[in-house]
C-alpha cells in the first residue's frame, strides 16, 4: 500500500508539472488555433531568469516577478513578430514558426545564461511530508496548488469579466467575434501574454523539483503537448486532467512495469486513448463545415 501511495505521489508531482505546461498550450490554441511549441521555452525562461537574477543579488520573490514579466514580454514579441505577420499561413507553417522561435530562444538562453543545471530553493522547505509510509515534497503541493489556482482564475476570468467573454468568443469563432467588434488581435496577444506568464510561473514553481537548464523546454513542450491533446485540446480542465493522467501513467509504469519503458507505455496508452476517444478525454468535437 505504501508503495502504491508512493507511485501515486510521484505521478501527482510529475503530472502537476505537465498540467501547468499543458495549460499554456491550451490557452493559446483556444484563442488562435496555434500550437505554440515555444511554450516549453517560456517555462525555461521563468526558471532560468529567476536563478540568474537571484545569483546576481536580487531577492528571490522580486527575481521571480521580474522573470515572469520578462517572459511575458518574450511571449508578446513572439506574437507580434512571429505569429501576427504570418496571418494567412497554414497550421503547419505556424507550428514551424513556433518551432523556429523555440530554437531561437534556446540558442539565446545558451548565450545569456549558461549550460549547467540550476535549482531554486523549495518554498516550504525540502523536508518531505510522510503520509501512510510514502513521502511527498511540499513543493509538489505548491505546484498542484499553482495549477488549481490558474484554472480557477482562468475560469473566473472567462466567466465574470467582459474581456474573458471576448476570449471565449474569439475561441468559438474568430470571424464572428471580429464582426461583433472584438479586436481579436489584442485577444490573441493577450492569450500569448497569459500563456507566457503561466509558463514562467510554472518554471519558477517546478524548478525546485525538476531542476532547470537551458534545454528543459524541449521535453516539457513534448509532454505538455501530449498531455493537452490527451485531455482534449481546447479544454482547460482537460489540460490539467491530461497532465495528471500522463504523470500517473509514467509513475505507475516505472513502478510496476519497467522503468526502461515507462515513457513508451505512457505513449502507448495515450495512443490507445486517442483511438478510442478521437477528441481527447474532455475535448469537444468540432463541427466541420463541408
Amino acid at each position, binding site marked *: 500500500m505504501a508503495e502504491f501511495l508512493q507511485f501515486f505521489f510521484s505521478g501527482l508531482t510529475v503530472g502537476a508539472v505537465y498540467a501547468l505546461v499543458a495549460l499554456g498550450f491550451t490557452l493559446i490554441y483556444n484563442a488562435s488555433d496555434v500550437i505554440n511549441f515555444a511554450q516549453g521555452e517560456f517555462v525555461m525562461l521563468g526558471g532560468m531568469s529567476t536563478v540568474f537574477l537571484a545569483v546576481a543579488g536580487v531577492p528571490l520573490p522580486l527575481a521571480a516577478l521580474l522573470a515572469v514579466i520578462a517572459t511575458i514580454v518574450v511571449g508578446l514579441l513572439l506574437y507580434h513578430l512571429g505569429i501576427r505577420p504570418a496571418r494567412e*499561413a497554414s497550421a503547419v507553417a505556424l507550428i514551424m514558426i513556433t*518551432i523556429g522561435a523555440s530554437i*531561437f530562444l534556446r540558442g539565446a538562453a*545558451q548565450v545569456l545564461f549558461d549550460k549547467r543545471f540550476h535549482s531554486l530553493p523549495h518554498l516550504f522547505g525540502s523536508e518531505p511530508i510522510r503520509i501512510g509510509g510514502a513521502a511527498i515534497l511540499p513543493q509538489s503541493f505548491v505546484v498542484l496548488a499553482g495549477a488549481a489556482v490558474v484554472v480557477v482564475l482562468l475560469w473566473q476570468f472567462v466567466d465574470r469579466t467582459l474581456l474573458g467573454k471576448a476570449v471565449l468568443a474569439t475561441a468559438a469563432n474568430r470571424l464572428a467575434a471580429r464582426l461583433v467588434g472584438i479586436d481579436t488581435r489584442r485577444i490573441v496577444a493577450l492569450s500569448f501574454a497569459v500563456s507566457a506568464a503561466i509558463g514562467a510561473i510554472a518554471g519558477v514553481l517546478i524548478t525546485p523539483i525538476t531542476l532547470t537548464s537551458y534545454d528543459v523546454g524541449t521535453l516539457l513542450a513534448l509532454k505538455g503537448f*501530449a498531455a493537452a491533446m490527451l485531455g482534449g485540446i481546447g479544454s482547460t480542465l482537460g489540460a490539467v486532467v491530461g497532465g495528471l493522467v500522463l504523470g500517473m501513467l509514467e509513475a505507475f509504469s516505472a513502478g510496476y512495469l519497467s522503468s526502461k519503458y515507462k515513457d513508451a507505455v505512457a505513449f502507448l496508452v495515450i495512443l490507445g486513448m486517442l483511438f478510442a476517444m478521437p477528441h481527447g478525454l474532455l475535448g469537444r468535437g468540432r463541427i466541420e463545415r463541408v
Partner: protein
Amino acid sequence: MRGWVSPRLAALGVLAALIVLLPLTFPSAYYYRVAALVFIFGLAAVGLNLLMGYAGQVSLGHAGFLGIGGYAVAIGPTHLGVPGWASLLGGAVISGLVAIIVGRPILRLKGHYLAVATLGFGLLIAIVLTNEAGWTGGPDGMSVPRLQIHDWRIRSSEAWYAISGATFVLGAMLAYNLIDSPTGRAIRALHDSEIASGVLGVDVARAKLVIFVISAIYASVAGSYLALLNGHITPDIAGFLRSIELAAMVVLGGMGSVIGALVGAAILVVLPQTLTWLHDYEHMVLGLILMGFMIFLRQGIVPSLVEALAGRRP
C-alpha cells in the same frame, strides 16, 4: 515551348544535369558528403511531402521510419547474416508493414490529434531502439557494415553521392508519377476536402494508408542510405528532433512540391555547415532564419519563388 516536353520531366532533366555537373565545383570529399546528405534527406522529405503536402496529413514522427531503415542495414548483416542490400529491402518491407499496421488506426485521427499520435509513434520507435541494446547497441549505437556488391565495397563519399543522387531522381520521378495517377488524384482530392472526396467515391481511408506506406518506404530507404554512408548509426536518427527537421524541410521547401522537398533538405543540411563561424550564436540565427522563411515565404520556398517569377510576367 509548352507541350513537347513535360514540365516535370524537364525539371528532372535539369536536376540530373545538375547532379552530374555540380561535382566539378567540389574541391574535396567533404562536399560530396554534404551533397549526399542533401539527397538522402531530400528523399525522405519527398516521401513526407507526399503525406503532408499532397495528402494533408501531419506527421511529426516520420524519423521513426528513418530509424527502421537505418537499423535494418545494421542489424541484418551483424546479427542475422543478411547481406546489406537485402537488409535494405527488408527494412523497406518492414517499414511498409509497420506503416500498414499503425496507419489504419492513426490516420483516423485528424489535425493536431494526428500530429500527437505520429509524435508518439516516432518516440516509441526511438525508445525501443535505445533500450534494446542487445540488438541495437543502445544509446551509443552500432557500427554498420559497408554495403558490398560483389567485390565493390561502397564507402567513399563520391560513390554515395552518385547513388543517393540517382535514387533521388528515381524517387522524384516515381513521386510525380504517383501524383498524376488516379491514386494521386484521389489523394489530392482528399487534401482539399475529405468529405467531398468521400462523397465522390474515393476510398479515403485506403488512399491515406497508401500514401502513408509509400512515405514510410521512402524514409526507410533514406535511413538505410544514411547508415551505410556513415558506417555507424545511433538512435537519434529516429528522435523527435530529427522528425521535426524532416517536417521543417517539407514545409520550408514548399508543401506539395517535389523539388521543394529537395530545396528544404538542402537548406537544412547546408545552412548549419555555413553558420559554424557563428559559434554560440548559431542556433539563434538558425531559429530566426526558420521563422523568417515561414513568415515571408509562407507557402514554402519553391511555390513562393514560382509565384514571384510568375507575377513578373504580363
